[in-house]
């Protein structure tokens, strides 16, 4: 089971990366980023998973027996942080795309090549 999850995570990462590198529409590229980040998050969660243990939420499990019953909480905490950061980055990218669209009335990534060499 955990292999399926971690493989899915990697597959999503590659899919997202492929989207970033191949799509011409800026919105689709941002979608690629979210897929890429989702893949990373899945990989992170699955790495901390321990077979047969519960989520590290202490209102279900008594704190005294938590150590033996929950999965590793750190990757889960990291994922939460990563999601928040991803949200920030995505929002900022969308703002940029909005402004870029206003600039040239286009979402095609190839219409923004003014800076070179």
């Amino acid at each position: 089971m955990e292999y399926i999850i971690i493989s899915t995570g990697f597959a999503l990462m590659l899919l997202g990366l492929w989207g970033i590198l191949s799509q011409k529409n800026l919105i689709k590229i941002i979608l690629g980023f979210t897929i890429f980040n989702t893949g990373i998050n899945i990989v992170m969660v699955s790495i901390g998973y321990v077979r047969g243990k519960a989520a590290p939420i202490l209102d279900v499990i008594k704190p005294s027996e938590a150590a033996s019953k929950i999965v590793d909480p750190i990757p889960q905490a990291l994922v939460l942080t990563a999601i928040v950061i991803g949200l920030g980055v995505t929002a900022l990218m969308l703002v940029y795309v909005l402004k870029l669209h206003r600039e040239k009335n286009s979402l095609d990534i190839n219409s923004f090549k003014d800076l070179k060499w």
Partner: protein
Amino acid sequence: MVGPIYIIAVALGIAFFMGLFGKSLKNLSEWAMLAGLGFMTYVSGQWLLEFMSNNRAVETIFTAGFKPPYSINLQMGSIEAFFTFIINVVGFLGAMYLFKDLKKTGPNAMMVYLVFIMSLNVVVMTRDMFNLFVFLEVGSIATAGLILLTKSGEALQAGMKYLIATGIISGVLLIGIIFAYYFSGSLNIDDLLAANMGASKTTVIAVFLIYVSIILELKPFPANGWGIDVYTAANPGIGALVSAATASAGFYVLYKLLPLGGAEWLNYIAVIGGITFVGSNLMGTKQDRPNRLLGYSSIGQIGLLMMILGLSDILGEKMMIIAFGILISHYAAKAGLFWLSGLIQAKDIKGWAALRKSPFLLFLFGTFVFALIGFPPFPSFFGKWELITTLAANGQWAWMVTILAGSFIEGIYLFRWLGYAIKLDHEDLPDFKIEWNKIFPIWIMAIVLYAVGVYVTPMVEGGMFINYLPLMFVLFLFAIDFLPVYIKNTISIGGIIWYMFHIYPVLEGDLLRLIFAGIFLVGGVLTLMAGYSKKGTRKGFYPMAMMMFAGLIGIIEASTLIEFFFSWELMTAGSYFLIIRGKRSMPHGYSYMLFSIGGAYAILFGFALAFASNFDTSLAALGSINLLPTLAYTLLAVGFMTKTASLGLHIWLPGAHGEAESDVSPMVSAILLKAGVFGLMILFLYMDRTSVGATNLLYVLGWVGALTTLMGNMSAAFQEDAKRLLAYSSVAQLGYILFAISIMSQLGWLAGFTYTINHFMFKAILFLVVGGIVAKLGTHYMYEMGGMIKKMPFSFIAVLVSIIVIGGIPPLSGFAGKWLFYNAVIEKGWYFQGAIIFFAGIIAFLYLFKLIHSIFLGQLKDNHRNIKEISAWILVPSYILIIGIMIFSAFPQYILQPIGDMLAPYFSTETLVWEGTKATTSLGYWDGTTIMIVVATAFLLLLAWLLALSSKTKKIEQFNIVFAAERPFRPETTHVSYNIYAGYKKALGFLITPLVTAFWESMSNLVLEFANWLRRIYGGSMQNYAIHVVLFIVVFYLIALGGL
């Protein structure tokens, strides 16, 4: 002590406060931001001071009440204190610089700014891997936000590229971190470093992912198009921050994580850094947008720093001082340059000519350029010195070549740029506003460079001997630069004379040094005297002239390798500024500088080999080079020959000397060239001349000297420009000297010394007088002169005496030189080369005749009828030198005998014997005094006879065509002296086809074209830049882990 946590707390607190109440705060928010940044600077500064003054333990800050790895911990040690301090300083100054832009955009921008600086602080201090990731991300987001300060399409595109690239990089880093956690069970950096993950084939993937993403954050070539675009399009104030603060933080992160993978990863880091350093600088050579150029330069410097980290195993404990010197120079210079760029707002580096409107800003620009290249007294000079010598000590030749090549390429564009700023003709210089809040930060950065330079001097081996006294004098002259010429001139002459008294007891007994000190200092006084003929303030002249003399005398005084090199570079910098002062000197100053840097690096390489042979820092180390001795000798000789302008390395000289101001030409010709001669003499005396390599080298140099003389004299004969004629004559005379000392016998060296002293005297006279005439007549061309003998009799006599010396005609000292010279040639048996020299000597008469005939004889031109004699301030030093020539001619034994005695221990056979005034060799004898008496008597008798006959002479009017041998009022083509040697040129001109010039031109074209081709990878497409990043990761993976 205020805890380091308050750096973060204050920044976040103010940022939140602004977010909540920003709108109602009105004008308070920008001051709150400045206060916050000031406080952050203060906190890190007091920690830095604490670590510097007390031997204090590292301060660790635990968060959330747990010990690591269960919580995040921050660390404040001496290095963290240093990095946070420099980040906060540039943050504070940057905010001051951007004050108006931030104010206009409002509290939101200030919030982002505070968070940006805060994030870099955390990146430096944190000891938690995930925390590091978070704050790298915060920094990226804040950067992307700050890019929007500039409201242009280009900035938008650059920001988007930045977001895409950093998005991918941070994803890779995150994966790396989670793997590292999985393998080691901790996120604490110290635990990760201890986990030795590089050892196992499975765990090494985490090492790879973390390294590749941190390296990518540092924008390695070629996966850095996104980074360069940010530098190009963002507000230069932001560029300064990214270049100085972000890069410093990124550099420290890499330093922090260096032990993560183990030794073999260091090689990869060094190689990537090396490629980045060379590649990025190479592409800078074709760049003419100032900000983009600075971007290339920044990335190049970070590449160099990355390389230093990668070589840390080799550099050992020296790494700290090296990295410090180079980092702090990059930091201050780049911040200053970006800020300057923001002031000028030029789209092209040619627009920087506008800087001329403000000499102080030009001074700052020069400071930053020289600091980046690594000139003294800046910290980068010491950093590079230690870097090269330490690498040499470990036999790392390839790295030495890489570093010097990259630095040279950096010089190509930086000095082109500086040249534009100083000299480029610019019809309507764009105006720029000077605001104090923008000038102040730039000044601070310049002061940092000088102060830190002096501060690190004693930390370098042998550095404590460096004498800063002459430099203080230079600084003093800068301070009084507003005073009129005659005051500054008097002070300068006074300074040199004082130094003569100061240095004489030091050098007493060391005749070699005494002679050169005499040439430099006496020459300095005499050539400076001509300066009294100038009017106005002559801004910048005196500090630079004194810097050159400080360097020259420093070379003489040097007892260690580093002192010598320090002074050598000082002299180069000073003379560059003198040379480029001429009206049309921009390209010549530029080529002088490039040859000088190239030569300096050859010398540095040679010195490094000498040092590494026995770990001896003294100049005597040149005597015991056992590491690649032949290469070391060759490099040193080539380095010194860039100053003596020997064949192949001479192409800068004719323009540089010919176009220089009338009193600068004698300084750089009669005096400066002798620095190269001194270097060669030192080298030849120390080196093991019995070795095969040295013998071959001397043989080749003999040929080079002979051919230089031939080429120089022939080129001089075909010149129409009087000063260029003299310049080529210098090339030839230095060829004689090179040839003479390459003979390596007592006679050869005596000839060399005689030529050196003669050339100093007659070339100073000629350049002073002819320069004065050229300035007076307003033309360089000899065919536009004529008949000056009656207008300028004193000048005529001075020139006449000089050319008698050059021609080697008895009774003057030129004959002594020739006599010794041919004795030495015959004794050595270099007949073929000797024949070439002899032939060249005949050609010398052609140009000497042309010079004196075209200027002084012939027909007086109509527009020169009211010309008077040149200034007495030029004639007085010339006549003092003529007296010198007369004494040297009549009593050569007083100088040559002691020189012969001095040389005796160095050469096995003492072939010249003195009896009173008579010098005897195996081939014959010569008596300077007798010759003088005989010739003078004959001359006086002839003169008397001619005077007696003079009653019968018939005065011929000017328009008597028979006398004039030229037709009046016709274009110059009919002038007798125009192209006077056309016949010879037809017959022999092929010998001086400018092959060397063509060679260097095609070399430079090759480099530029290659750079132009290479930079096509930066095609502008965001997606391509993302692909570059991914490809970089893949290729690095395949090489590091894929067994490629």
